[in-house]
């Protein structure tokens, strides 16, 4: 096995499991729908709240999709084989993550213009929203991977994973919605974007290694 062959096989696997990516998207849409239905469908409520609603839904959707990232591999024994493959496990995890990110985020980003109409978002704000999603979502995926790796050996670890990982999502959500809020009142938002980028980069260095440690401890 090589890194390239592993990457290709992950892409193939995602194509075979399209339903998983679709599920994440449908879940995302459902959460978004909760807000107009549960609170108010009026423009006065939805327009200022839109950034926050989308980001909360994105955070939950990413958590749901990342949670099962290693489960199947753990159950069929291929995770164990990755550990003994002689390849560097953090890099393998990162490659898997890249494929997962593309599978979940690209359709989501394509959906954004449609959503902007549903939530009364202006075009300029939409652009900021998309920027925050591109810069901030890697952090969510990376942190989520640590949770997925820690709970991989548990049969019903989904709720536990949500429990331990959600607090770490708060800074990303705060700064993303902060950037969108600043844009909505015409204030500069570069600072928030920079912090988001910093958080994503920091998790990039930390997460694959931590996830690898957790996987090695779980695979026995």
């Amino acid at each position: 096995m090589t890194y390239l062959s592993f990457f290709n096989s992950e892409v193939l696997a995602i194509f075979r499991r399209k339903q998983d990516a679709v599920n994440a998207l449908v879940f995302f849409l459902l959460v978004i729908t909760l807000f107009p239905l549960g609170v108010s469908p009026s423009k006065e409520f939805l327009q200022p709240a839109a950034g926050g609603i989308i980001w909360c839904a994105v955070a939950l959707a990413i958590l749901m999709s990342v949670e099962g990232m290693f489960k199947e591999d753990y159950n069929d024994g291929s995770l164990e084989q990755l550990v003994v493959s002689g390849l560097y496990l953090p890099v393998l995890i990162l490659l898997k993550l890249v494929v997962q990110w593309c599978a979940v985020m690209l359709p989501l980003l394509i959906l954004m213009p449609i959503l902007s109409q549903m939530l009364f978002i202006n075009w300029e704000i939409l652009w900021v929203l998309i920027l925050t999603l591109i810069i901030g979502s890697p952090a969510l995926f990376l942190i989520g991977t640590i949770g997925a790796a820690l709970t991989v050996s548990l049969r019903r670890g989904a709720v536990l994973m949500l429990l331990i990982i959600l607090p770490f999502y708060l800074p990303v959500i705060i700064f993303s919605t902060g950037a969108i809020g600043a844009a909505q009142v015409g204030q500069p938002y570069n600072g928030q974007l920079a912090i988001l980028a910093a958080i994503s980069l920091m998790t990039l260095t930390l997460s694959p290694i931590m996830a690898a440690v957790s996987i090695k401890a779980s695979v026995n």
Partner: protein
Amino acid sequence: MHSNLDLSISNLFIERSERVLCENFSCLIKAGEVARIMGENGAGKSTLLKIIAGILQPLEGKILFAGEDISFHRDMLQKHLLYLGHHAGIKSVFSVAENLKWYCPNKDIDAIEEALAIVGLAGYSDSPAHQLSAGQQRRIALARLWLTDKKIWLLDEPFTALDVKGVSVLEGKIKQHTNNGGMVILTTHQSLSDALCVKEIQLVS
């Protein structure tokens, strides 16, 4: 290449779930040998294989491979290693052939089909792996042995799900591998043929 693949284990302390399985275990396995780990059920045979493979870490002890100390990082050994454990390691989302390509990406489809024919799965190469029985999936994993270039084989109960013919085919392959300078370490409940010249290693607790 021949003589430099010796595996030396010294003073291993094996513990699993708070039970001490084996203390002060030492052995030397040379290239070209077939080593069989002997012991009762639960004695730690699979655990020992996992420790050598790098899935588990022993509490104490040293492992040397080709003269290098690999006690903390097994990468050097893993690059030469093929491990067949309790799980088949076959992904249900791929076809049979794709699974084998996952393990040996540099082998072409002809080699894969040939290997499948040897393990009795001729014609299954395009079948989705999840359609095969557990025994058949184990045989897919065994097919790796005919496709791999790795020199060190760790086989945990490789003869399960094999009929008499399958057992002799596998034994033949093991013999061929060790004749070419490879090393095989295995556990099994099966009695092995004398032609293999098996070196028996006892796990005493």
